[in-house]
């Protein structure tokens, strides 16, 4: 296994080579969104300058070209997660839209009064609120799998949540706060033993490890392009064909229909049934370039390197007096949420900002996680393969400086 050539990689990301407030940028807000490699930036440029044209519609050269690229992207994404068929890959505008699509469409078909949905205490709001909205409409209810002090799901409690009313499990593959990589195979197997399908929210997983949806036997898998080095406004819903075939459409409009009349409208085949309107084909092709970039570096190399970042940052942060890391699972991505005794995270982050270090503060769209620890907010530093050990040192120095100023 080769290691990461950090210098080369950092050259691939133009944004990283800049200064803010005259300090070199240290970008540790990758959990919110990742930066884009040159290959993605240039591809988007190229489309806009040379090939832009609406897909599936025109009979002309450019339209043919764009359609080909758009569909080749779908095939690329299929291969990336090893879906069985490319009709199982639905383009959406992001993870949030993917979950909303599913909650609506699955909900219309399979959820009725009294039914139950299992989620977890560590979910992102995007994997809570769509289900709450559904439950309100259908008078169904949500059951919550708790996590322990390390940030690990309590699988025994999860097992006990199943009843004959359970219709679906929707759980983060990886938590955007605690960083926990959940035992998804176990989660899926348990659900399947009750004949309940599983949605995995892969927003924080797909960029860190190899996903094989067939091997996992997962029913639905969702993620956002912008968190895996691709553009904004595009995301994926993977679903097993048997479910997608049965589910009704979510949005209506151009492209998702076969025949429209005022008496009877028939819907298009998969995946188009779920793709209404002009697609974000620029985003789709941009995503593909990002996936190719990742593959060239090697997702296993990325994982190995990020693991080192995780361990180094854990070790160094723990040396800081009064600093508490939340989320200490043994199975964790390279993200750290933490607070410092008697210092507001926002103050620390303001000072870090001035040092050129971009972290995030707040509840990270996961208020139940904050509630678990009885806090309002934390600092989050999320590191990826273009970050360095030196940057972690700078973070630690910055925190100490802030501590000095603030305490």
């Amino acid at each position: 296994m080769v290691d990461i050539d950090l210098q080369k990689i950092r050259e691939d990301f133009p944004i990283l080579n800049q200064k803010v407030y005259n300090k070199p940028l240290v970008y540790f807000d990758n959990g919110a969104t990742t930066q884009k490699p040159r290959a993605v930036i240039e591809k988007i440029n190229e489309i806009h300058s040379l090939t832009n044209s609406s897909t599936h519609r025109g009979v002309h050269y450019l339209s043919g070209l764009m359609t080909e690229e758009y569909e080749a992207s779908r095939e690329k994404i299929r291969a990336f997660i090893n879906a069985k068929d490319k009709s199982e890959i639905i383009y959406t505008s992001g993870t949030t839209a993917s979950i909303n699509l599913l909650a609506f469409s699955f909900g219309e078909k399979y959820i009725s009064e009294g039914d139950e949905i299992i989620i977890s205490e560590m979910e992102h709001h995007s994997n809570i609120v769509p289900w709450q909205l559904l439950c309100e409409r259908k008078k169904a209810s949500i059951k919550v799998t708790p996590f322990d002090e390390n940030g690990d799901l309590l699988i025994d409690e999860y097992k006990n949540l199943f009843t004959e009313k359970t219709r679906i499990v929707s759980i983060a593959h990886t938590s955007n706060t605690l960083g926990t990589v959940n035992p998804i195979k176990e989660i899926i197997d348990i659900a399947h033993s009750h004949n309940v399908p599983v949605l995995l929210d892969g927003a924080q997983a797909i960029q860190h490890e190899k996903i094989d949806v067939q091997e996992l036997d997962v029913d639905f898998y969702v993620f956002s392009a912008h968190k895996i080095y691709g553009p904004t406004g595009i995301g994926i819903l993977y679903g097993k064909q048997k479910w997608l075939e049965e589910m009704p459409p979510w949005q209506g409009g151009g492209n998702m229909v076969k025949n429209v009349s005022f008496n009877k409208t028939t819907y298009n085949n998969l995946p188009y049934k779920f793709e209404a309107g002009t697609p974000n084909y620029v985003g789709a092709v941009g995503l593909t370039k990002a996936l190719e970039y990742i593959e060239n570096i090697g997702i296993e190399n990325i994982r190995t390197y990020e693991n080192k970042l995780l361990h180094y940052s854990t070790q160094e942060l723990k040396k800081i007096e009064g600093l508490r890391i939340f989320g200490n699972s043994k199975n964790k991505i390279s993200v750290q949420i933490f607070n410092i005794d008697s210092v507001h995270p926002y103050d620390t982050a303001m000072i870090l900002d001035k040092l050129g270090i971009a972290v995030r503060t707040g509840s990270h769209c996961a208020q139940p996680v904050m509630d678990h620890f009885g806090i309002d907010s934390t600092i989050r530093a999320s590191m990826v393969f273009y970050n360095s050990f030196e940057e972690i040192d700078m973070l630690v120095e910055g925190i100490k400086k802030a501590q000095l100023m603030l305490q």
Partner: protein
Amino acid sequence: MTINEIQDSIIEEFSIFDDWMDRYSYLIELGNELPPIDQKFKTDEYLINGCQSKVWLNAEYENGIISYTAEGDAVIVKGIVALLVKVLNNQKASEVMNVDLYFIDKIGLKENLSPTRSNGLLSMAKKMKLYALAYYTKHKEK
């Protein structure tokens, strides 16, 4: 003639065409000459997916030999399917199902069709081979 002999003769025919206009004119001619398909096959079931205009295709089988009838509502597309029929009609199903249709590349048709349309062409060819495979398998089983 064998499939390959027909392919070679088409390649020769096309070799005298200078540009796409000649090619299209020839396809239009072929399209216009294609005998109509039986009305009962002009249903959704016989439609070929991936074409942007309508193309209906049917195949019949007798004594190991497969024969095709086809029609399209746009004439150039009809010409393309006519070309395929010309190559594959009344040939052994066992040969059709595995045939290498090298003539497509050689006559510059693929470059002459925008990608989505060459998809249409490939869908037609694929469907024809599938028919052959289906009949062959069915009759071998008996």
